[in-house]
């Protein structure tokens, strides 16, 4: 009986040692991966920073002004002026394309599928 228990304990010890060994290497691998991910995050942050700086640099007011001037014939951009403010009253009411008055009333609002546009 005692011998049997001894053998059992020894086998248990071997199993535990094997488990601990594997666990140790798994942890080390995980830590390495975490380090790699940190480095990657850091690199991406740096890259993001560069992109943000570049975005700000390319959108600096001086450059936008020069671009607006260079492309004036296509875009026609000018500084905003006070007279560009309007009132709702100045906005033209959208033109309604009313159907001819002699059409049957039932067609209004159901718009036949072949009718293009409003």
């Amino acid at each position: 009986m005692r011998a049997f228990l001894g053998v059992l304990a020894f086998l248990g010890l071997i199993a535990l040692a094997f488990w601990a060994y594997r666990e140790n290497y798994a942890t080390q691998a995980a830590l390495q991966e975490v380090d790699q991910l940190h480095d990657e995050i850091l690199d991406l942050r740096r890259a993001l920073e560069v992109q943000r700086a570049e975005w700000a640099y390319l959108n600096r007011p001086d450059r936008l002004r020069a671009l607006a001037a260079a492309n004036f014939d296509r875009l026609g951009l000018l500084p905003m002026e006070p007279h560009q403010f309007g009132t709702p009253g100045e906005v033209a009411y959208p033109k309604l394309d009313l159907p001819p008055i002699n059409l049957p009333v039932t067609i209004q609002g159901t718009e036949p599928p072949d009718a293009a546009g409003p």
Partner: protein
Amino acid sequence: MRTPLRPLARILQARAEGLNPDLIEAENLRARREIARDRNRGRAERRLKFLSFGFILAFMAIGGRMGLLATTPPNKERAAKAPEVEILALRSEITDRNGRILATNLATHTLYAHPLAMVDPKTVAAKLAVIFPDLDADTLERRFTDGRSFVWVRRVMSPEQMQLVHEIGDPGLEFGTRDVRLYPNGSLAAHVLGGTTYGALDVKVTEIIGVAGVEKALDARLRDPAQADTPLALSLDLSLQTTVEEVLAAGMGMLNAKGAAAILMDVRTGEILSLASLPTFDPNDRPGPPVDKAADPADSPLFNRAVQGVYELGSTFKIFAVAQALDLGLVGPDTMVDAEAPMTWGKHKIKEFENKNYGPLLSVSEVIVKSSNVGTAHIALMIGPLRQQAFLKSLGFFEPTPVELIEAPGARPLIPKRWPEIVAITTSYGHGLSASPLHLAAAYAAIANGGVMLKPTLLRRDGPASGVRVMSEATAAEAVKMLRRVVTDGTASLGEVPGYEVAGKTGTADKPKASGGYYEDKVINTFAAVFPASNPQYVLVVMLDEPLDTAGSEPRRTAGWTAVPIAAEIIRRVAPLMGLRPRLEAAALGAIPVSSN
């Protein structure tokens, strides 16, 4: 050698002498036991010593291990560590009020060398001199071969240059990282941002320190690791700042002015939306301070005229005397005051501009509209020097502005030492007391917002601002009405911007000479504007240093011809950007598109 217990010789002898032989045996037994006892004691002692030595060793091992565990960071923490820890050294960004970047950091590379690890210093030096034309091959070679172990080669280089250095492929050349502070908008808002320099330098870490402006004033906040990820939001608006600087620079060029400054402020919060000072500089490549100590610091582009420059701001001060008199109930807007010029006070003579005479009597609002020195002088005498001082103090004219710039606390207003009545008179029309344009903007904001003095700030304010009431709401409204008349009927007629009801006051002051006295032909022109007059929301102060309008038949130096048109153009450009809708009379509405084209 074991001695027998009963040696035969001694037993026989004892028997022969009639003694008891057992005594001999007992005697020998005792001696033998003594020897055994001594031996056992020695053995036990050795065992005890060995055991205690073993225990000490074991405890020391455990103690040492515990100490080691306590002092070394456990591995577990490494896994939980946030990546932010790595970039603690960074400085937080600065943005405008809408989050557009004004200052950020950029990671670049530096080049250093370990000459002892270098394979071929001579070739490396020659190749480096080709890549960096400003380096000298002989100097480099000497530095690589004189036995030192570390040499900085380049503090800044472009990625292309870095690639070329890579291609040299010498193990003695190494790259370090370097963060640079980048101001992507160039010289825009340069005086607000200030600039940075390097503190401690390492091949891995760079310490960036603010040297001027917000960068220095809020250095601790910008370097705070806990707030490194939160950008510092200023009250400035990038679009407004651009427009103000553009118009101001154009105007300054047209009028041949030496310098110019403009401040645009929100009167309800005290936020400075734009602060410009010309000439300006590029904070990415900040020029050094003036080498010549005797030179006027105001001539350096680093000088912030809006905050550091203290000037006699001239007639713009008149509204303070009038507002105070109204608030004290001494006069009403239509009270007639003595305006007979010239006025004699002791041995001083107070004259009007170009020796005019608006007298004998002028209503209080006409005093402002016509900018009468004599009329203001009489109002100041009614108020008296003590009350005048207290009022100007409450408007902040006795202290440096509390704005978040490192230059601000140093720009102390120049106040007369004594305050007799003649000083009260000159101060009432803006002579004798020198203050910065920012002081003026803050005081005008108090008039514009209904009489509450707010602390001007360069930081975005998200909540409402609270301040000290310095005059009643009715007085403030009356003062704005008078300022509006200056534009419609008075000295600032060029300041009218259709739809924005500009109100304001001009000021023209002769420049004081460094040697005492005043220049004949050098002036400081100021225009302090409030708009729109019916519901004041913004204050704009434009200041020009030595302007000269040569468009007319004779040169003109009054603010009405210089600062006012510039201010009007700034308002015309920035008001729509701020979403301020022009208020137009119904009759004028149809005519707008035609008239504005």
